């Protein structure tokens, strides 16, 4: 088992509104391991996005507040960091791709300027600039005659630049910007945008939804983050474009070596991209398992019902099984297990005590008395 990169312990997030306190996250525990893709699934309002925002410490405050818990990135508690250090973590260590690519790009900045901005803020580009200059001079040197006086001078210049400490190198802001734009072109090429040289000069409205999402992904991977959080990255896109973006994210995971957290309500997307899945319901994590295992043998009644509720193209049924009722109001959530009013197997204990997430089999955790009771016996 690989080491956990991110550990969330007892995270509680509340929103203090006029109507009452919305208990959005009710003490969740979660782990993202090195190199894996973790899927976070659930219905609207179950707390998937709040989890992501809490990790980034971007929960809008007020009305939201992270009241309890810890979020450990390689053992360092993000919730205790001062804001300026947290700003470094965002973008350098953890980045995020949002659902709607249109609203997260600045409409009055060119694509190149936006990608370059990320690089200018988070990365020391002086080294890149030096390398670029050396490369340029070497090229010149190759063209020049070896006996030339010029060649000797060039060689000397190259040596000088190579020995220069990047930290002491005084580069002009303009030069750095140019390097950043050139790096942006490379990044856009990595995310397979056609004609990146043209795209850097364009504005977001000139691009299609799929292209915009690629730009956002380019910005997200610009600084080689350890963890990429993708919040419904393909929900706004058409299926054919969705397939392209999912392929890209899968490939990047390998080439760039990312760990990722994928938030989605589409179980199909989970099946195609994730190694492990955590199922959320009304602010709680109800089940965690490997993807194969979850689809094969779901344990929690909610997971089971949800899997049966999706129409599948491989089979034909007259009636879909649906979960009766609707998602509870989180201002006054049901006591005990929050799923109990909709659960077909509800017992007395479910109405009183909140079930804990318990490991039933290796790597398969579930928060349901149906299974934990059995274990006790």
């Amino acid at each position, binding site marked *: 088992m690989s080491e956990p990169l991110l550990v969330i312990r007892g995270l509680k997030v509340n929103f203090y509104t006029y109507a009452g306190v919305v208990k959005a996250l009710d003490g969740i525990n979660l782990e993202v391991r090195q190199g894996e893709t973790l899927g976070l699934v659930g219905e609207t309002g179950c707390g998937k996005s709040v989890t992501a925002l809490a990790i980034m410490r971007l929960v809008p405050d007020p009305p939201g507040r992270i009241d309890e818990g810890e979020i450990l990135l390689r053992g360092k508690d993000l919730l205790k960091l001062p804001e300026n250090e947290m700003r470094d973590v965002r973008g350098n260590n953890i980045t995020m791709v949002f659902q709607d690519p249109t609203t997260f790009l600045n409409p009055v900045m060119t694509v190149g300027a936006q990608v370059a901005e990320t690089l200018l803020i988070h990365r020391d580009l002086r080294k890149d600039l030096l390398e670029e200059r050396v490369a340029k001079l070497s090229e010149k040197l190759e063209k020049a005659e070896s006996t030339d006086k010029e060649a000797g001078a060039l060689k000397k210049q190259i040596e000088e630049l190579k020995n220069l400490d990047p930290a002491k190198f005084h580069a002009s802001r303009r030069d750095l910007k140019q390097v950043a734009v050139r790096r942006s072109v490379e990044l856009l090429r990595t995310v397979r945008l056609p004609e990146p040289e043209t795209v850097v000069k364009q504005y977001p409205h000139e691009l299609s939804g799929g292209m915009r999402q690629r730009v956002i992904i380019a910005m997200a991977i610009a600084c080689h983050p350890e963890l990429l959080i993708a919040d419904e990255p393909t929900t706004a896109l058409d*299926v054919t474009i969705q397939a392209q973006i999912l*392929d890209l994210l899968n490939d990047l995971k390998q080439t760039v070596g990312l760990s990722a957290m994928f938030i989605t309500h589409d*179980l199909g997307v989970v099946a195609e991209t994730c190694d492990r899945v955590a199922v959320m319901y009304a602010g709680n994590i109800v089940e965690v398992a490997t993807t*194969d295992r979850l689809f094969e043998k779901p344990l929690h009644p909610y997971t089971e019902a949800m899997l049966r509720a999706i129409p599948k*193209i491989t089979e034909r049924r007259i*009636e879909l099984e*649906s979960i009766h009722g609707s998602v509870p109001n989180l201002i006054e959530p049901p006591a005990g297990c929050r799923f109990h009013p909709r659960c077909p197997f509800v017992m007395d204990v479910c109405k009183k005590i909140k079930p804990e997430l318990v490991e039933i089999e290796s790597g398969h955790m579930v928060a349901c008395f149906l299974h934990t009771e059995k274990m006790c016996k």
Partner: protein
Amino acid sequence: MMEHTEDLLNVKGLKKYFPIESGVFGRGLGKVYAVDGVSFSIHKGETLGLVGESGCGKTTVGRCVLALERATSGEVYFRGENVLKLKGAAMKKMRSKMQIVFQDPYASLNPRWSVRNIIAEPLRVTGRESKSNVESAVLVLLKRVGLSEDHLNRFPHEFSGGQRQRIGIARALSVDPELIILDEPTSSLDVSVQAQILNLLKQIQREYKLTYLFISHNLSVIKHMSTRIAVMYLGKIVEISNADELFRKSLHPYTKILLESIPVPQPKTKRKKERIKGDVPSAAHPPSGCRFHPRCPIAVEKCKQIEPDLIEYSPGHYAACHLAGKW
């Protein structure tokens, strides 16, 4: 069902172009070819699924059929009568035969009206029920879609998305229609609620002997609901077939790729995947010849020049492709 192949709706060469205008005087700059020569028919009692990516014109087809949008040209026959030529009282009468449930249940219900008013309005307008009966008719409809008497005096904002869609369905049912156009009725809902609504739609179809035109971009939902499926691409129908056959043996490369692009909630089935290059071209400047050719993996020279016709390859299975089935 085969003995009942009476056509309820017949659409012939439907076209809808939206002008692109600019400036004070609305100088024409060109046209968006939203729907460009679409023909299909819907048999009585069946569900025809209309599927395609955003911007392919599927919603516009639905709106033109109901004459909510004035078609540029083409004919829409409902029981042999051209809907697009109807006016005044005849149109009003026809409208009660054809109803629509919209995609966004948040925008399609008047926020200032109580549920009672929303459902009663069509009854009052068409004069189907006497004033004294309206109340009880509304209640029957409300109960049929799974809501209760307590909901009568509430307003749309008090309901969840699924409940609002139920209200929209009750409103469409109120005038006793024969055809209901369902324009992405579940795309804004969660899976568990989506299942409830799809089940409801199937139940009332059986009960009221309804015919559906089901518009959606979600192929799994379309397959679950439809008897036959029409696939649209950039304003044209590229393939029509029986639902099962379309999934088993698609003829058009676009359909094939579309089917392979859907993420399937079964992690063990790793399928061979073909992807489409690039994005959907703009409907204002559709490509010459076959509109799919710039993205088609098997396009040949002929595809760039000659537009393929919708040809019947096997009984009831039509495709518009020069290379249909040769892939």
